[in-house]
């Protein structure tokens, strides 16, 4: 990725990032807020995600039905996502129609209605969303693991929230959350695409500068104490398939250890795809875990995820156990591979291969303007855009010794939770 972008902070604290890309007549606009499930105390779990839903329920200027129809009529793609550290809203539009997206985001930064009836109907929609998640064995297992891994830190609950809170929260809870965190000094606006920077900036100033700065509440700061031994748990549910998940405490994205661990992840479980939209998809069939688990018929799939988060989260390995095998056999083979990467240094060639894969994924991701705009703002939520621009350089500088140190520091049994999903229909 080239460094041809513009950054500016408006007097009210709103950070703007702009990147001109003239390959297609499209512009992608992303409004980011530094609030997510990490900011939710017990009793209000799921409030950030529910607020995100309410942001589609209209303002005086853009009533609910007018809003979605206006974007769709212009051929735009739009959506929103809530995560542990952030909430974001995007619109990718034909270039000459982007003004609608800008007016909409400026308006709903302060003026969403949170109508009482809309709150009531959205409560059951979100409970339905949660029930859909609960149909998935890996959601149930992941939720149990996350809870076991974080006793103190608010990463302990799922973004969707707990059913008890979804049933109990009120319009006042939602609106208070909205008015506290949706202020320009807690937001980033990032646009990439077919525009001229000076003109775009002038338009953004007209729309966003009048919004007054707020008093952003401090973020919940409850660091998780050090782990004092391995946790093991089981989740039982319908089905015939057994899943095994091992989740290790991992560093935050801004920690220098994040990059050796990224290389380690690539060698163990295959290259991860950083592209949220389009691009990537390199398989992992030559990775160490695939060879040790799938080729040896202990599992039918193996993968892992290392997520770029603000606070230390989890490095999580997920294995679908072979129907003829027991989860302990798969865990034994997994542990043998962990032992190997802790004990033996990886080669420089292996690291070079992982870096080449990451470079290619960047090239694939550059095909999508939406993906480029996503990264412009996303990196600001846990570091700065520079984190993304220097990502490949930082990977390229990782040494075999650093990979081994990361393995020894993080991939310890004392630092993990191991969970097994046992199917009620065919438990082994």
């Amino acid at each position: 990725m080239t460094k041809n972008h513009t950054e500016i902070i408006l007097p009210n604290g709103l950070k703007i990032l702009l990147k001109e890309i003239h390959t297609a007549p499209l512009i992608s606009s992303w409004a980011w807020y530094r609030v997510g499930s990490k900011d939710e105390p017990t009793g209000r779990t799921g409030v950030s995600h529910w607020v995100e839903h309410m942001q589609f329920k209209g303002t005086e200027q853009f009533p609910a039905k007018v809003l979605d129809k206006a974007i769709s009529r212009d051929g735009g793609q739009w959506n929103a996502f809530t995560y542990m550290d952030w909430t974001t809203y995007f619109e990718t539009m034909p270039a000459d129609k982007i003004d609608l997206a800008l007016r909409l985001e400026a308006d709903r930064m302060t003026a969403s209605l949170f109508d009482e009836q809309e709150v009531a109907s959205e409560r059951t929609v979100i409970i339905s969303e949660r029930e859909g998640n609960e149909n998935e064995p890996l959601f149930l297992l992941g939720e149990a693991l996350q809870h076991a891994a974080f006793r103190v830190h608010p990463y302990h609950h799922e973004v969707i929230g707990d059913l008890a809170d979804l049933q109990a929260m009120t319009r006042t809870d939602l609106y208070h959350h909205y008015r506290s965190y949706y202020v320009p000094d807690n937001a980033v606006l990032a646009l990439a695409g077919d525009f001229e920077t000076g003109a775009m900036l002038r338009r953004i100033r007209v729309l966003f500068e009048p919004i007054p700065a707020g008093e952003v509440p401090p973020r919940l700061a409850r660091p998780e104490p050090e782990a004092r031994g391995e946790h093991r748990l089981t989740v039982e549910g319908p089905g015939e398939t057994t899943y095994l998940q091992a989740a290790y405490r991992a560093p935050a994205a801004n920690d220098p250890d994040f990059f050796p661990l990224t290389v380690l992840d690539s060698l163990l479980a295959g290259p991860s795809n950083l592209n949220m939209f389009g691009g990537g998809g390199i398989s992992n069939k030559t990775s160490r875990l695939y060879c040790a688990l799938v080729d040896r018929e202990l599992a039918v799939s193996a993968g892992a995820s290392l997520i770029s988060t603000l606070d230390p989260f989890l490095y999580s390995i997920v294995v679908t156990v072979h129907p003829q095998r027991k989860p302990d056999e798969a865990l034994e083979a997994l542990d043998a591979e962990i032992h190997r990467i802790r004990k033996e240094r990886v080669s420089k060639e292996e690291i070079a291969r992982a870096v080449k894969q990451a470079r290619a994924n960047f090239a694939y991701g550059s095909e999508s303007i939406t993906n480029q705009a996503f990264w412009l703002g996303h990196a600001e939520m846990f570091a700065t855009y520079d984190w993304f621009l220097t990502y490949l350089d930082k990977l390229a500088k990782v040494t075999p010794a650093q990979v081994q140190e990361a393995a020894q520091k993080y991939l310890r049994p004392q630092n993990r939770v191991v969970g097994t999903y046992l199917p009620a229909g065919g438990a082994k």
Partner: protein
Amino acid sequence: MKNKVSENSSLHSLPGPEDITHVTLSNGITLLARSNFNSPSIVIGGHLPCGALFDPPEKLGLADFTALALMRGTQKRSFQKIYDDLESNAASLSIGGGTHTAGFTGRALAEDLPLLLDLLADILFHPVFPADEVERLRAQLLTGLAIRAQDTADMASLTFDQIVFEGHPYALPEDGWPETVQAITRDDLAAFHARQYGPSGMVLAIVGAVESKKAIEQAEKILGRWKNPQQPRPPELPPLQPLRKTTRRKTVIPGKAQSDIAIGSSGPLRKAPEYMSASLGNSALGQFGLGGRIGETVREKSGLAYFAYSSLNAGVGPGAWVVNAGVNPKNVEKTIDLVIKEIRHFAEKGIEANELADSQSNYIGRLPLSLESNAGVVNALLNIERYDLGLDYYQRYPGLVQAVTREAVLETARQYLDPEKLAIAVAGP
């Protein structure tokens, strides 16, 4: 004036006869290519007429199993070697079976196009189906089927197909059943490959940072020598018997928190003249904005579901026109009633003028976004070929969309969606 200029510049970026190369290789393979030097990568895609239509009933899943097994080893590359060649070069290639065709897709940095084509040729020409790899793959497929049996959305869809397409090959899942996948032998895979796979009917699209002339040269050199004189013609599809009355079936999956519902009927062929009217009507029914009328009724007004929408899946044969929603098991009846009411209203009255105008505007406006990436253009080129749309289809597209009238939408809705003859499938506890 501003809009006019923008429209013109958008149209220039759409694929058309001036920048799509369409040729036939010496052995009959159809090749489409389009250059895009904005990113240093290339995407390939295509298909061969080797789908599940050829499967014997007791070995349902054979075509899919064969396609997946092609990448498990060739005369010159082991399974590990195939994937080492791909992954070391940050490339990807995959192939799988559908009802009519086996479809493949691949991606690489532009300089690795010859490698990608060489691998494609290798797995298509010289697969060896190693016995141990076949068994590994079988375990993976059986696990996939066990997961499918627990997936309420998959099972609602499968049950829907069994009702709508009863007595027709489309009623059968192309990935088979556990017992039919168990019955397939290694020799069955080798025999299916030897008989069905060949250049006749194969289509390949190449899009990305390569001159089309060079792409053709490389494809001819690598794929042009393939022959299989015994390749059979694909079987004719039998006629579809329409439903005589509303038919409802439930697949019970104990222990689940949510039920999935699929309600609808068969739909038009992709090549049918009324396809565009049906598609725009479907947009108003269950796509536009946050799920059209269905989303408005089921999600926004009633709060019954996180997702509720309709889709029109049109292909070579009769398509499916279906409404899907995921709801709490106690709300299944209420949701079905609401959906049928919307379908009835749609089939009797059609859509309003502003609804048609909204969807027309959406279809035209979203075109540049759908054609932004190499993968999007590959998909567009394959559609042009599969459905004889013409190389200028995407340039003519705004006119085709604008030509649809309310009357045409109503006529198509009446033709396909009879509220007294619907298929209703439910999967859940």
